[in-house]
């Protein structure tokens, strides 16, 4: 919102030497964020009034003229100009060298320099209104017209800003910083804050007392949505431009002057924050009623939108139908027309939420609706009415109010709050003198009565629509007016009762750091919604998957029930730039099942923290990728200090390859899967080239150790020996079978067995594979002889040939 400092000065007398930087800073610290502070005259530096003394033809151009222009104190300059309305005696806008203007009103401002135009030297430039940013105030009939200042009482040489009385400061307020303060959406509200900040008197509005006894027929049919409606018929008017001073004020704060009647309503809104409206009274049939629209009721708005309304919309109607969308915009039919001579002035209060719904429904937010949305108090109608009537009387001395009605059905209750000083002092951390508290609150409109231990406060109507209701609000008022910066910082007091020990929180971090820093994987974040194609690729059905009522896009309605669909999408995205990468994500998943009841009957769906990983590489590396992924996941428990898990083949995931998959098991329960993404699922997701081993793990099922549990093993006193064996077995024989065969009922000197390599190919018969293993053989009591070692190896070989029909090749 933009504010004119001159306008604010109508309501609070600011000292002439007021430091503007200070004012902007104080308002920002205590009330609203001042985003900008512009001295309006700076836009018009080196731009002055000139008077054309002579108009001569240009020797080299038909459309250009050479003007002899008086630029003050009799100094005459030659200025080349192509204006279509140049005349001797005309007062024009001269941009002197150094001034900034916008050529033809377009692009960035450029600096004017002395230049030759078609061979003729020209001092500066005679400007069109659009070139100095004043097109709204000086409308033109054709594009070549230059701005005409003849009507202004300003001699040649007068700076333009002075001639037009534009010496003003424009404050730009961040709208977001005052959504909770409906009272601040006009100059008067900010003036009140300034008056309280600096202890300056605030001008009051005089209450308007109607002179007519004729009641204008106003019927409020929904008092909840319309607590108050003032209708006044004013005659003896006419459409004309409003006074220049009024026009510039409206223009300075960002609106466009239209005509006197419309300008009055906008001026009143900008001054008080209370929207008002005028209807051409000749087009209002019989009476005005405020009612809900009927389903499908048609209304054409001022901006030519044709609406089909619904019963939630509140309309202003006459006996024939809707004439305006209450609080949002007037209708086309009853707007002010060139021949309008009498109007119905509307000063009304509408319920905030309804106005907001309607404005959003038709994507039609306006200056009025955005103010009503903040919950304007109905008492403010009095101020708006007073100012509007004053302006009508000033602009139309012969005007006459011929009928009036103030229907005030929903009177606002002023809030009352008790605050005791002991509490206030404790919260503020200091005592602020009562005299200051009373003065500041009083200036803001609060009625304060001191009691023995505290004060009784009546909140003013303009702060009673939800803004101030409890004593913490009063504390805030006191603190911000006293100045937040005037409180001394205090240290945090604390009681120490033990170190923080959060095993689950730590485990998640350990796992992520393990994956990122030990296993060199990259963490990614994805949205909680999934694309349909990836969901369908990973799941046989969408049953049990939650969906959004208003999804970000039509094919992203399902909410994460697994991390894999979005991880697949990330693979698609990165496949273009990398041919090998490992990624992981930790996030919550949601299932439309296992609802848990909570406090106050809240029932929440199953939500669990999951870990998803992808190990991605060329498809000829699948075997290696799988073993690497399994190594990363398998080693995770020992690096992160939690109960370890095992890998079993129990239940194949839908998305998994037929051969390359295992379930991750913890204490006999499946907590995740590790598998190669099947070709079919990969293609359905859009993965074109690479193969991916995917892992998904339920992190909430993991069990952290209370402390590190690795134990020290004494170093062996006698050497251990390694002994490699290679043998042929059936190619379907698994490592689990081999391991069990060797380690079941084993020789006590055999300490461990390790897988070395697997080989299929030349020299190996079809249907067989060669396995090399490493036996670890040793004794705690003595150094073994080579015969003893060979004996252990031989017993292993015997077991292998007996149990697995292995054919030992080399020793």
């Amino acid at each position: 919102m933009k504010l004119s400092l001159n306008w604010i000065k109508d309501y609070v007398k600011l000292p002439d030497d007021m430091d503007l930087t200070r004012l902007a800073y104080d308002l920002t610290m205590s009330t609203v964020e001042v985003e900008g502070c512009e001295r309006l005259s700076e836009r018009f530096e080196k731009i002055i009034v000139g008077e054309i003394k002579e108009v001569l033809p240009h020797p080299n151009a038909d459309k250009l003229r050479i003007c002899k222009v008086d630029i003050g104190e009799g100094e005459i300059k030659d200025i080349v100009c192509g204006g279509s309305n140049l005349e001797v005696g005309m007062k024009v806008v001269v941009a002197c060298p150094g001034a900034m203007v916008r050529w033809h009103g377009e692009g960035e401002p450029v600096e004017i320099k002395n230049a030759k135009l078609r061979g003729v030297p020209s001092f500066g430039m005679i400007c069109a209104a659009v070139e100095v940013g004043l097109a709204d105030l000086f409308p033109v009939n054709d594009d070549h017209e230059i701005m005409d200042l003849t009507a202004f009482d300003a001699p040649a040489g007068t700076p333009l800003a002075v001639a037009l009385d534009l010496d003003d400061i424009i404050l730009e307020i961040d709208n977001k910083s005052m959504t909770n303060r409906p009272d601040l959406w006009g100059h008067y509200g900010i003036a009140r804050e300034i008056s309280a900040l600096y202890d300056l008197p605030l001008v009051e509005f005089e209450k308007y007392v109607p002179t007519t006894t004729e009641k204008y027929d106003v019927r409020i049919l929904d008092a909840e949505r319309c607590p108050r409606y003032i209708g006044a018929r004013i005659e003896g008017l006419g459409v004309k431009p409003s006074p220049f001073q009024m026009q510039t004020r409206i223009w300075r704060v960002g609106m466009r002057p239209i005509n006197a009647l419309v300008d009055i309503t906008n001026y009143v809104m900008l001054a008080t924050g209370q929207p008002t409206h005028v209807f051409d009274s000749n087009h209002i049939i019989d009476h005005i009623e405020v009612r809900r629209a009927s389903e499908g009721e048609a209304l054409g708005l001022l901006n030519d939108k044709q609406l089909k309304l619904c019963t939630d919309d509140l309309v202003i109607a006459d006996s024939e139908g809707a004439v305006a969308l209450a609080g949002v915009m007037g209708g086309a039919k009853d707007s002010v027309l060139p021949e309008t001579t009498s109007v119905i002035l509307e000063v009304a209060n509408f319920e905030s939420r309804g106005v907001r719904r309607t404005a959003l429904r038709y994507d039609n937010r306006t200056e009025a609706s955005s103010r009503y949305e903040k919950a304007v108090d109905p008492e403010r109608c009095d101020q708006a009415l007073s100012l509007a009537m004053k302006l009508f009387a000033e602009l139309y001395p012969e005007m006459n109010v011929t009928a009036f009605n103030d229907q005030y059905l929903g009177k606002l209750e002023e809030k009352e709050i008790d605050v005791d000083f002991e509490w206030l002092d404790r919260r503020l951390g200091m005592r602020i003198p009562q005299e200051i508290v009373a003065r500041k609150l009083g200036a803001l409109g609060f009625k304060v009565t001191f009691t023995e231990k505290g004060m009784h406060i009546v909140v003013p109507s303009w702060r009673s629509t939800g803004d101030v209701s409890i004593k913490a609000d009063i504390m805030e008022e006191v603190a911000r007016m006293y100045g937040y910066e005037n409180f001394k910082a205090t240290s945090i007091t604390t009681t120490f009762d033990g170190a923080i020990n959060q095993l689950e929180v730590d485990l998640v971090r350990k796992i992520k750091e393990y994956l990122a820093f030990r296993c060199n994987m990259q963490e990614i974040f994805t949205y909680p919604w999934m694309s349909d194609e990836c969901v369908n690729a990973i799941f046989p059905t969408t049953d049990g998957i939650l969906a959004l009522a208003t999804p970000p896009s039509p094919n992203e309605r399902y909410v994460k029930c697994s991390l894999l669909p979005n991880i697949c999408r990330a693979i698609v995205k990165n496949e273009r730039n990398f041919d090998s990468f490992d990624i992981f994500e930790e996030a919550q998943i949601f299932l439309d099942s296992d609802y848990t009841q909570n406090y106050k009957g809240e029932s929440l769906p199953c939500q669990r923290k999951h870990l998803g990983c992808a190990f991605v590489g060329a498809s000829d590396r699948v075997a290696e990728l799988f073993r690497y992924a399994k190594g990363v996941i398998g080693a995770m428990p020992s690096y992160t200090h939690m109960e370890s898990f095992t890998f079993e083949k129990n239940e194949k995931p839908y998305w998994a390859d037929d051969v390359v998959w295992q379930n991750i098991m913890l204490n006999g329960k499946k907590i995740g899967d590790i598998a190669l993404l099947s070709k079919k699922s990969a293609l359905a997701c859009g993965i074109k080239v690479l193969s991916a081993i995917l892992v998904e793990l339920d992190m909430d099922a993991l069990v952290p150790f209370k402390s590190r549990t690795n134990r020290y093993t004494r170093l062996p006193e006698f050497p251990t020996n390694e002994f490699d064996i290679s043998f042929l077995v059936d190619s379907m024989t698994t490592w689990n079978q081999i391991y069990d065969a060797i380690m079941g009922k084993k020789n006590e000197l055999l300490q461990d067995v390790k897988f070395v390599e697997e080989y299929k190919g030349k020299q190996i018969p079809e249907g067989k594979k060669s396995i090399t293993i490493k036996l670890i053989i040793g004794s705690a009591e003595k150094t073994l002889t080579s015969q003893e070692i060979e004996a252990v190896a031989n017993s292993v070989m015997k077991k292998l040939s007996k149990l697995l029909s292995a054919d030992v090749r080399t020793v």
Partner: protein
Amino acid sequence: MKERLEALLEEGVAKIKSAKTEAELQEVKTQLLGKNGSITELLKEIPKLDVSLRPEMGKAVNAVKAQLTELIETTREELKLKASQIAPDFDCTLPGIEPKIGGLHPITQMCYDLNDAFRSMGFEVFSGPEITSEYYAFDNLNFPPNHPARESMDTYWLEGHDKGEANEKLCLRPHLTGDSVRYMQTHKPPYRFVYPGRVYRNETTDARHERAFFQYEALIVDKDFTYTAGKVMIKSILSKVFGRDVPVRMRAGFFPFVEPGFEIDMGCLVCNGKGCSVCKHVGWIEIMPGGTPHPNVLRSAGLDPDEYTGFYVNIGLDRLVMMRYGVDDVRLFHSTDLRFLKQFR
């Protein structure tokens, strides 16, 4: 002859010492002690000498021969140790082979930095469910019934759960503050905890707006906590994150779940408060909202607001990370693009 021997010795020692490689040394050896070497030649001349001189000269020449032989051998050992293990054309200016490095998401990094800072001040870390009921999203946070954020344009309601009572309506959490109530309902005061997490808003996205973004909230609830202590807390946190003292100011602001509420600004680190385009020439950057928990929020946690008060801040992690690294598009965080993510180590 004696003089010649002495000259040969001197010359021989110099030649051996000047040898730079084993091959050069071998060459020197041949010149001195080889079949036609200078010392060998000298030995050959001894029989031609007068008999009386022969033994003495023979001894002297042999002594020189032995001395040179030894010097050659020790020099050979030295040259062997000095020699490179690799061909001399090895190029040391080739770039190093970097370890393969993964990494945490830059927002996780920032989150962990903050966790460390808060933990050191005795805060617990808490996280709540991302799907919540309207009750926890709005009602017990003092959002008035007509608050615009409740409408579907701002909140992702779940299909089939978007109508009914507040405890039946479910949505993706629009902010974290509801989680604080969950914590307080299940723990005993005083409280001192942080609750980082992702929140969701149904908005149009652009370089500065996202539908999913990260917040980091911290809450202290205790008896007689003044808001001025909150300022100390914020200052220590920001100094930790940015590695230097950061000026902080608190000014009037409004959020439904705090009273009084503040906008908390930090001094612009780009211009040190002088004013630049990053801070829109005001020298301050809005970094987080904060304030005293609203009495209704404390009440919904089962606390007496006359007895308890506290301080709360909500740090926008995305924004903080963007400032830390100069990232100019918030959507990159959820892009899953490794070209972006791999930059943060």
